[in-house]
């Protein structure tokens, strides 16, 4: 059976999304991307330097990948919308990851402003993937505003702490009828597998790959982990129980 994830009309067979920040150089970044087999890469428009030619970040991204520019640096909906339009204008396609951060201490996303930006940009024809703090009601509003997928954080960005928001993310996976891409906080391949086992449709990993001692090998490890987690999910994980199931002490009398 072909296991395909469709976002914005695009069929993806790899469920690992990657980021471009924090790498020691662009060449290494490009190699890591190839090793990850990922098909979607997020790029901060703020880092794109059209004048830099071969030194520009876009130069080393494999051409087969779908670009998902992000609005990093936006502090409100208006700034996010402006950045998204600029990204489209410079030819980065019509996918946009909305990132609105009005908190520079923890870099937590602002769900309200993100929803506003989602609505404006979805109406303009963008494929909108909002990055958000896992909150069911906010996710529903983003869905209603036209989001193509929802990207809840697993833990504060760059924290490498794993899926600390597990219960909240699980509720979103169960309740939101859009692809859920767990973004931020994933520090180890096993945590990416964990997110996939939970039923997430994809994960986005940047810091854990870019700051590894060997980013290329780490990208490969994440590819395997995401695949393993997905297969685990699809094959139906056995239910977890803390009590023995061999007998039925309370209902055994029913025969």
């Amino acid at each position, binding site marked *: 059976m072909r296991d395909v994830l469709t976002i914005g009309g695009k069929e993806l067979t790899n469920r690992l999304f990657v980021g471009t920040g*924090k790498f020691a150089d662009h060449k290494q970044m490009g190699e890591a991307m190839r090793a990850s087999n990922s098909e979607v890469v997020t790029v901060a428009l*703020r*880092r794109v330097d059209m004048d830099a030619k071969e030194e520009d970040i876009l130069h080393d991204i494999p051409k087969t990948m779908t670009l998902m520019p992000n609005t990093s640096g936006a502090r409100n909906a208006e700034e996010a919308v402006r950045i998204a339009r600029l990204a489209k204008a410079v030819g980065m396609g019509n996918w946009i990851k909305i990132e609105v951060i009005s908190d520079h201490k923890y870099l937590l996303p602002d769900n309200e402003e993100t929803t506003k930006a989602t609505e404006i940009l979805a109406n303009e024809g963008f494929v909108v993937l909002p990055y958000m703090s896992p909150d069911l009601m906010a996710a529903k509003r983003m869905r209603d505003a036209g989001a193509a997928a929802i990207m809840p954080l697993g833990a504060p960005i760059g924290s490498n702490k794993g899926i600390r928001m597990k219960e909240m993310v699980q509720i979103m996976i169960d309740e939101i009828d859009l692809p859920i891409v767990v973004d931020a906080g994933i520090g180890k391949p096993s945590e990416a597998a964990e997110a996939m086992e939970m039923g997430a449709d994809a994960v986005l990993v940047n810091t854990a790959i870019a700051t590894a001692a060997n980013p290329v090998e780490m990208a490969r490890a994440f590819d395997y982990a995401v695949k393993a987690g997905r297969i685990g999910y699809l094959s139906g994980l056995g239910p977890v129980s803390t009590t023995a199931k061999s007998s039925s002490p309370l209902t055994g009398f029913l025969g």
Partner: protein
Amino acid sequence: MSFYHKFTEVKDLPFDVMFASVTGRDVERVLQKDRLTEQDYFMLLSPAAESYLEEMAQKAHKLTLQHFGRTMQLYLPLYLSDYCVNICKYCSFSFNNDFPRRRLTIEEVEREAKVIAGMGIKHIILLSGESKQHSSVEYLKKSLEVLKKYFSSIAIEIQPLNKEEYEELFRYGVDGLTVYQEVYNEEIYRDIHVAGPKKDFRYRLDTPERGAQAGMRSLNVGALLGMDEWRKESYITGLHASYLQNKYLETEVGVSFPRMRPHAGSFQPKVNVTDKNLVQAMLAIRLFLPRAGITISTRETPEFRDQLIPLGVTKMSAASSTVVGGYSEPDVTQSQFEISDDRSVEEIKRLLKSKGYQPVVKDWQLI
């Protein structure tokens, strides 16, 4: 509420006694923690913490890698004018220093911009002496109209302005504000700032806050190391940065570590701040404020700057000229201070790459 209230709470503390009472065990406890309090930060600045510099450095390196990655932002200063109405004992631009003053014409601003942009630099900081006549908001606005064509991020380090003026400059494309308090000791401040509007300690102290209220994306604070006891100065600088970060969450707060350099006047540093001291101050701030930007200027020697790169620095300047018109016409007039590291942008890029860092020339987009 202003940082001044916090400042008055701490300024008369018996710092010497308090720093001396910190023990190695206190420092070890702080090094085990994920989130540091003001008290923890204080302990990292103590003499006792000097025995733990390697541990602090390891932790600072890890945190910086985690939050900023293997990257270094490059920027250049652009001096617009050296006219100044202040008399300050330590500064070459001081009103009573007799030298031919200069303010760039708009055509000259463009000439400088072309040279800087030609080096591949996209982030600049505009500097001037304090003169409402020469570096007026109107003049700055005209300059910005030209500079916007060449740069993607423009910060200012000019005389303190009021909130409305900052709002206007923000609309014209300025996104960052640097203002160093110079010294957080009010008596020394009054002594070294002999005459002129800069004498107003409180107005300067509240300047970053006015910038945040005006919408600036980034603020940069710092003390001129060498003016007073560095542990205390560093502590209050950290409190200032932390106050701004907590109150203006939407603003990026950074800290610089300018150390006194020789200059044309006869004023020399009051306190000798050693390399070891500067490193301790820098590591302590990184552990206290893991996401704060840290800038290290070309005042420091190439050898020392190279060693500082993995310790928490996130921004560096290169090929800097501290002379008005210094990029398009080398060999002209008076510099604000002598730089020690005159390596070119290409040399700094090569150095960063050899250390496993990606030089970042563009990290913002005028929107």
